[in-house]
């Protein structure tokens, strides 16, 4: 029997039992749709996390202070987290030279109340070094970044984020204007004393956009030294040193170089006792992608269970169909149908059910992801070609697996018994 005839006859018999075929297909449709939608959410989250990490700059090696623990397992003094210095950064810069692209150091200065142009705002203040734009792939949109000289003289200059700029100054240019950081100390005698530090705005950063509800365009960058001496009092120490490697491939080498320089500078013989931690962005990405992959697999598995239930529905209905059509099978066998002809007829029917169900399921899954986007725009979804191919493949495979047993039952019927059945 020609395949085309088989397909036509399969479709015919599905059309005859419209409602039944539709309900049976619904199981597969829901299964495929849930796999598509769930995996899309998982993939979307993964892609979003990855782009968030990369938006902080690419090929980064980050050094952060590490709490040193003594052999008894007790933690070291709190001061040990202040062991990274601007001098460490200078040493790395001097020793690695051309083998890295750039290096900068950061010192968090906390949240401050800000007043400028008669407006009040609250923002995060970070002390950084002039290489910041290069390391973070984050150029200034307007004005200029502060210079090495500004750092060396603790100049009270600031580069502000685009969101901060529009909050304080609206659409007008803030370059050359002043902003004041205010800190209020409660006075035991009542009231409070305010400390006000003025900064001149020299630049505005390019817009990066918000991720996970955290707006990175709302921040104020000041020279590290200013953050240390004027704002925090943590003289010379920094929260992190960030090194930009030449390329993704050289990151492992750079990581090793940085570690050995710092071990030497900090006079630590055993790397296990290092008072700092060197984080390679590749490792971070790999760790994150492992997490999101697990997450995606978990979500996919939940969808897969409904697909399995749909498959069992297919098997059930195909068994009913074989029972109902025993006489037809007898007639077909009497006029010369071989086992394989009957087997294929029923197999094609179940594959047609699951294949069509799979296609409709993809459309439904796509619809669901669109709806999710409409309702919750911050939740990223991503349907990949791979997901679609796998979903269709799996649904066709379910047609084969769950259709095979009923089809084999049909094929092995004895023609005489089949003809006698009513």
């Amino acid at each position, binding site marked *: *029997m*020609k395949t085309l*005839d088989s397909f036509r006859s399969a479709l*015919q*018999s599905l059309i*005859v039992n419209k409602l039944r075929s539709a309900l049976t297909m619904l199981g597969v449709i829901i299964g495929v749709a849930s796999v598509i939608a769930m995996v899309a959410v998982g993939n979307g989250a993964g892609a979003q996390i990855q782009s968030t990490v990369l938006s902080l700059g690419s090929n980064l090696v980050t050094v952060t202070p590490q709490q040193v623990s003594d052999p008894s397992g007790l933690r070291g003094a709190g001061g040990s987290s202040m062991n990274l210095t601007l001098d460490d950064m200078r040493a790395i810069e001097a020793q690695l030279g051309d083998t890295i692209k750039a290096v900068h150091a950061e010192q968090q200065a906390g949240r401050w109340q800000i007043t400028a142009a008669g407006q009040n705002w609250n923002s995060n203040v970070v002390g950084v070094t002039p290489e910041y734009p290069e390391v973070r792939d984050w150029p200034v949109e307007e004005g200029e970044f502060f210079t090495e000289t500004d750092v060396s003289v603790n100049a009270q200059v600031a580069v502000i984020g685009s969101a901060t700029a529009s909050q304080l100054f609206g659409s007008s240019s803030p370059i050359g204007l002043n902003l004041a950081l205010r800190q209020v100390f409660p006075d035991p005698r009542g009231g409070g004393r305010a400390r006000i530090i003025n900064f001149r705005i020299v630049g505005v950063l390019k817009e990066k956009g918000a991720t996970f509800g955290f707006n990175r365009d709302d921040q104020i960058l000041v020279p590290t030294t200013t953050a240390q001496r004027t704002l925090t009092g943590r003289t010379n120490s920094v929260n992190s040193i960030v090194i930009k490697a030449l390329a993704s491939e050289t990151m492992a080498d750079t990581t090793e170089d940085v570690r050995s320089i710092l071990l030497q500078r900090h006079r630590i013989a055993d790397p296990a006792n290092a008072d700092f931690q060197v984080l390679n962005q590749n490792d971070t990405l790999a760790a994150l992608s492992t997490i999101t992959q697990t997450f995606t697999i978990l979500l996919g598995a939940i969808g897969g269970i409904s697909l399995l239930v749909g498959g069992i529905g297919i098997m059930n209905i195909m068994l009913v169909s074989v029972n109902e059509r025993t*006489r*037809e099978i*007898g*007639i*077909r*066998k*009497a*006029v*010369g*149908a*071989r*086992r*394989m*002809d009957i087997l294929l007829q029923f197999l094609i029917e179940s594959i047609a059910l699951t294949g069509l169900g799979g296609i409709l399921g993809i459309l439904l899954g796509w619809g669901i992801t669109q709806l999710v986007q409409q309702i919750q725009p911050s939740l990223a979804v991503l349907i990949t070609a791979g997901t679609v191919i796998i979903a269709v493949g799996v649904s066709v495979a379910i047609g084969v697996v769950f259709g095979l047993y009923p089809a084999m039952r049909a094929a092995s019927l004895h*023609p*005489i018994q089949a*003809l006698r059945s009513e």
Partner: protein
Amino acid sequence: MTVRPTPRAILTLRGVTKSYRMGKENIVHALRGADLDLAEGEFVAIMGPSGSGKSTMMNVIGCLDAPDDGTYVLDGHDVAKLKDDDLAEIRNRKIGFVFQGFNLLPRLTAIENVELPALYGNPKQRKERARRALESVGLGDRFHHKPSELSGGQQQRVAIARALMNEPAMILADEPTGNLDTRSSAEILAIFQHLNDQGKTVVMVTHEPDVAAHCKRIVRMRDGRISSDEPVPVQRRADDDLQALVAVA
């Protein structure tokens, strides 16, 4: 004196036995050594009371069931020991079935039902062949009717057209008039007689002597064996029956 050529043998059964297991202990010996010869162009009725083995005989002749023992040569092929799929192929090429209950597929139109044997065998020009077969049984105007839109006699004629589709060596009819009224029965028998006049071999299983009288030879069965095998002295013509029916009306 002219020598008449011996007609070609269509089937030869020798010592065919077949038994069925009914329940756990009960074995029914349906055929206990049946011998039968059939030549091309014959029109044979197989008769016998129920339990005589005529249904089993029909299943064995129709290659729907393989005999336990004995030999069966159908149109030159030894089919006694064939496997299921080979039997299916023989049925497709050598045998045209006509059943008491018509056994048409209700979802297919008349012409699609007639085409069915071609799907499992020779698919060449199957539309054209199906059309010709339906025209030959007088249903040239019913190609696209579903079985439910046809009378019993018309449905049986569709079944005959289906049996003719692959130009089989033999038409095997199992109580073909059992579900029909007198007039339709006569029409169906007339079709068989015309086919036989054109040289087709027809085997018909029936328990009605009136129907058997339209054949040329009657084989009677009893207890799983052939009990008598004799020619019909004067073959009753179905065309005459039809004329008589018209006269009565």
